[in-house]
């Protein structure tokens, strides 16, 4: 256990981290998959992946991980939340109303209200706001891969939106706090560009 200067990929016992880890490895990242708040506490960067149910994030609060992540974010360390990891940045989600989010961003995540099919699964396009470090080099209209039923509200921190029965937050960036609703590890060269941008911060 080290992660001193490395990237902590937080394992909160929800779903499958293999794909995220493989993509980061392919980009040459030095990382540690961990559930240890102490490892998170000295990481140079923190990645919070997530596939599955928002309720799984309750593990973060119980194990002291949430406090460690928030403390590290307050230190200015770059943070990237993926899918449920992005949703956790907000105050909570209708998917598990009793489980609080980190509250680093205002608002709550809600289920899609649309005539379209839910879950939203597949490749959909990004509308980008200029100036994002995370989305640098990504062309407006690029396609990324989604699989989710709940979405984060559009806020001042929103740097990309996707339309599915109305626009929703595809990516946020507020200083060192970043998140993406889609799966960059499964979004081909576009997704790898985004991960590489994060690694190079």
């Amino acid at each position, binding site marked *: 256990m080290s992660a001193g200067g490395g990237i902590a990929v937080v394992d909160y016992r*929800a*779903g*499958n981290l*293999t*794909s995220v880890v*493989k*993509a980061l490895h*392919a980009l040459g990242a030095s990382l540690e998959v961990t559930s240890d708040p102490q490892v998170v506490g000295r990481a140079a960067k923190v990645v919070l992946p997530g*596939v*599955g*149910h928002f309720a799984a994030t309750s593990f973060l609060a119980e194990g002291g991980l949430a406090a460690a992540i928030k403390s590290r974010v307050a230190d200015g360390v770059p943070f990237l939340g993926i899918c449920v990891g992005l949703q956790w940045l907000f105050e909570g989600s209708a998917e598990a109303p009793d489980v609080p989010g980190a509250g680093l961003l205002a608002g709550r995540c809600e289920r899609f209200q649309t005539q*379209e*099919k*839910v*879950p*939203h*699964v*597949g*490749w*959909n*396009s990004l509308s980008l706001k200029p100036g994002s470090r995370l989305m640098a080099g990504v062309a407006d209209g690029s*396609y990324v*891969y989604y*699989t*989710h039923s709940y979405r984060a509200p559009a806020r001042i921190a929103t740097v990309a939106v996707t*339309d*599915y029965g109305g626009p929703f937050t595809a990516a946020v960036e507020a200083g060192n706090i970043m998140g993406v609703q889609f*799966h960059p*590890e*499964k*979004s*081909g*060269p576009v*997704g*790898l560009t985004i991960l590489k941008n994060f690694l190079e911060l």
Partner: protein
Amino acid sequence: MLTKRIIACLDVKDGRVVKGIQFVDLIDAGDPAALAVAHAEAGADEIVLLDITATHEGRGTLIDTVQRASRNLFVPFAVGGGIRALDDAAAVFDAGADKISVNSAAVARPELIDEIGRRFGAQAVVVAIDGRRVKDQPVAAAEVFTGGGRKPTGRRVVDWAREAERRGAGEILLTSMDSDGTRSGFDCELTAAVSEAVAIPVIASGGAGNAAHFADVFGQGKADAALAASIFHFGVANARELKTELAKLGVPVRLPC
């Protein structure tokens, strides 16, 4: 706009691709790991690897294949064939699959869908259904077959799709046994019946012969995605070319890719 997915399918036996698409520039055209990456680079939106190996030794080979394929694969990767228990699924996920596909084992014991979904999330569970129309009966009477299409089950396709969704399936992979291998088009009527019955995405399979067949199954068939295998043998070079044709026909697809 959400695009229609073109999914490249590799049929694998004892670690070798037995059917599917050949790439002339590959050193080993039978290696599923190399082919999976080649398909992704040629524009496929997703890769499905279906293992038809019957032997125990071959199962170990599958895990090795999934590991090698997923190392350089950065599009969604589904693996099916021989997954009978939660442990089988866990091993395939650990090896690098994003989704697993279950077929006969889920019909035999439907709780398998619930178990895998609870542990890995609904998005990770694809329920594959092999369906056949019943002569002189409406499409709603189409029957589910298992064991590689050999064994009738007495279940109706639409009912089984609904049950799979209720149990936590993330997607349905529907193969029309009547259309499979004909190259005369997908069974749009059956696909639409299933797609209208469930809220989860439906992947159409069986019968593709040209780009217009894909446009039909995305339109009339209301499919969310379609499986492409043998079409790449017959005049369409790869997924990028297929999607370029589809874009001309007005189908939303991921381009450039």
